[in-house]
Structure formats: C-alpha cells, structure tokens
C-alpha cells in the first residue's frame, strides 16, 4: 500500500516533468516552425541543428546538461526540451513547406490572406508529419524523463535507479510499467487527436 502511494506520487512527478516539457516543446516548436517558414536562414539553422541533435544519444544530452546547469528538476527540463523541441520543429516545418503549390495558388486566387492560408491550407495538410514529430517527441520525452532521475529530477525513473542500485527487480518493474502505460496512452490519444482535428476531406489521404 505504501508502495502504491509512492508510485502515484512519482507518476505525478513524471507527468509534470515529461508533459510539462512536452507542452512547452509543442507550443514553441510550432511557433518556431511557422517563423522558419518565412525566414530561410532560421530554417537552415533549425534543420541542421535538428539533424545533429537527432544523432546524439539522450543519455549524452542528459549528462552534458550537468556541467552546464548542475543537477535537479530544472536542468532535467532543459535536457528534455532540447531533445523534444527539434523533431517537432523539423517535422512541422517540413509539413508546412511541402504543401502542393496548386492549393496555395488557388487559395491566393480566392483572396485568402497569408494568415488564412496558413490556418486553413498549410496546417491541415501538415498534420500527418507534424503529429509524427509530436509522437516521436512524446516517446523521447517519456524516455528521457526516466533517465533524468539520475540527475535528481525525481519521477518514476527514481524507482528504476533505486532498483538498479540494489538489484531490486520488483522496484524496477514498478517504475517501468507506469511509464510504458503512459507511453502507450499518449500514442493512442495523439492518434485520436490527429483524426479528430484533420478536416474530413483530408482524412482519406492520412
């Protein structure tokens, strides 16, 4: 029973850590993707950086935050943001950019403003890669939020590392199972959300 309440507390911590960062990443990522759409230089910098960061192991990112920011909750958030932000920006940007020119011309032809084109044409067409990026980022975030327990962020990873230190397999499993369930739930929720917000006319393609 005591274990159960501990798991609940740590799950809440994990959710705050992982999904707080993910929410920031999504908002900032979409904003930056839109900005890169209108600024080629920013786009080049972001895509290059995203490709670089995608190759670097999460554990290295987590470790590299330590000399720069110390340990605790805040450095953990920075590590997660750094890792999650770039795939979201990259995928959203690619989605927004690769809209069939015919649609854009047609939209201009009927007199839509740039903002309207972004809202009703570019975004709906960009949903599939955008959601793929967000899903990827969500899984990464979940994984890194476990890892950051090694630098004192708390959360479910704490149980895992306590278990690893004492070879207590039960403890490790107690820590891991909620993480997996959260991961699966996120995947399902994001898939449903994507279906829901995609306009009916575009659903078949996706």
């Amino acid at each position, binding site marked *: 029973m005591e274990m159960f309440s501990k798991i609940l507390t740590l799950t809440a911590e994990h959710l705050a850590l992982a999904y707080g960062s993910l929410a920031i990443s999504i908002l900032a990522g979409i904003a930056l993707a839109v900005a890169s759409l209108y600024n080629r230089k920013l786009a080049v910098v972001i895509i290059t950086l995203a490709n670089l960061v*995608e*190759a670097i*192991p*999460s554990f290295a990112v987590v470790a590299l935050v330590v000399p720069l920011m110390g340990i605790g909750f805040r450095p953990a958030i920075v590590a997660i943001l750094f890792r999650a932000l770039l795939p979201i920006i990259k995928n959203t940007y690619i989605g927004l950019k690769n809209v069939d020119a015919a649609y854009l011309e047609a939209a201009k032809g009927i007199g839509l403003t740039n903002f309207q084109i972004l809202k009703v044409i570019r975004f709906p067409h960009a949903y599939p890669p955008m959601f793929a990026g967000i899903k990827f980022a969500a*899984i990464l975030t979940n*994984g890194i939020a476990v890892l950051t327990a090694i630098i004192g962020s708390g959360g479910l990873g704490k149980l*895992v590392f306590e278990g690893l230190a004492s070879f207590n397999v039960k403890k*490790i499993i107690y820590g891991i199972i909620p993480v*997996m369930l959260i*991961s699966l739930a996120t995947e399902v929720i994001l898939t449903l959300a994507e279906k829901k917000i995609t306009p009916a006319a575009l659903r078949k393609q996706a």
Partner: protein
Amino acid sequence: MLSEIFQLWDMHKLGLRTLEHLSMFGLAMIFSIFLGIGIGIVLYTNKKISNTVFNILNLIQVIPTLALLVLLLPLLGLGKLPTVVACILYSVLPIARNTYSGLANIGKDYIETGKAVGLSGKDILIKIRIPLALPLIAGGIRIAVVFTIGVITLGGLIAAGGLGAPLQTGIHLYDKPLILFTGIWVGLIALIFDGIGALGEKLLKKRYHYGNV
C-alpha cells in the same frame, strides 16, 4: 588542456570503453540489418501478416529505451547481452518498415518491363525491387545506427560497459571534465556514424534512384 584530456582518457580507460561500445554496436547492427531486411522481404511476400507484425514492432517502439533495457534484465541478466538485444529490438522496425515500403513502392514501368522481358516474380524481386529499394533500406539502417548508439550508451547503466559507464561515473562523482569530455566524445561518435550512413544513403540514391521510389 591536451594533457588533461590524455589523463582523463587513461584514468577512465576511455579507449577500452570506446572499443566496447563499438563492438556492441557492430554486433547489434549486423543482427538488426539481417533481421530487418529479412523481415521486410518476408512481410512483402506475405502481405496478410504484415499488418499484425508491424503493429507488434510499433508497440516495441513506444516503450522508452531504458524501460525496454530494464525489462530484459530479469530475462537476460545484467551486461552486454540485454543491451545488444534491446538495440536489435529497436532497430529491426525502421529497417523492416523501410525495406517493406521500398519493395512495395517501385514504379510500375520497371515491373512491367521486367515482366515483358520474361522475368519471374522471384527474379523481379531480386533483380528489380531489391536494388531499387536499396536507398530506402539504407535510410532505415541510418535510423537504426542512431538508435543503437543511444541504447548502448544506456547500457552503461546496467553494467554493459561502453561509453555510458564513464558518463555515469561522471554524473555520480559530479566530475565535470569527465562528463563534458565523454559526452562530447559520444556525441561525436554518433555524428560520425550518422555521417557515414548519410554518405552511404546518398551514394545508393545516386546509383539506384531513378526518379521514383
């Protein structure tokens, strides 16, 4: 500066750690490439089961890396074996998926031409579909390379050695130079291998990419 790095390198046996890292990397890549391409081809010739198998592989992909690694502990114990197995489990999906979609999305003209000159289904697979799918397969392998380097780093946490071990030591001892140097070194290795993968993909595209796929 340079002498400090040499001292770090010696003290934490980073040369040995790098070799450990690369040997696990090589082993995992060999298995996942054969397995991934094999599964991709089998599923392509067996479309009925492909959805089910891909769903199972997708499910594995959703599990966070450390979680998968740790779940293998009760089955395989500590050390190198669970690390390599986790790498393979993660890497098979991108390779299999890319192989499958590479084989499936060949321009109709090529297939028609193949049929017209009298190639059998098997010949078309071997002489047309597989060569044309190579750039996409290489793309999948590149994703797997990145995953594998990452999972091996985590292996340091379950006593597999490799470059994750000095990172972990650094974090525990709050040894900033060790963390910085090892972190950058791991990042560099990952980038080098990703770069090699990119180069291979590019060469194959140049050789086999005829405008569709």
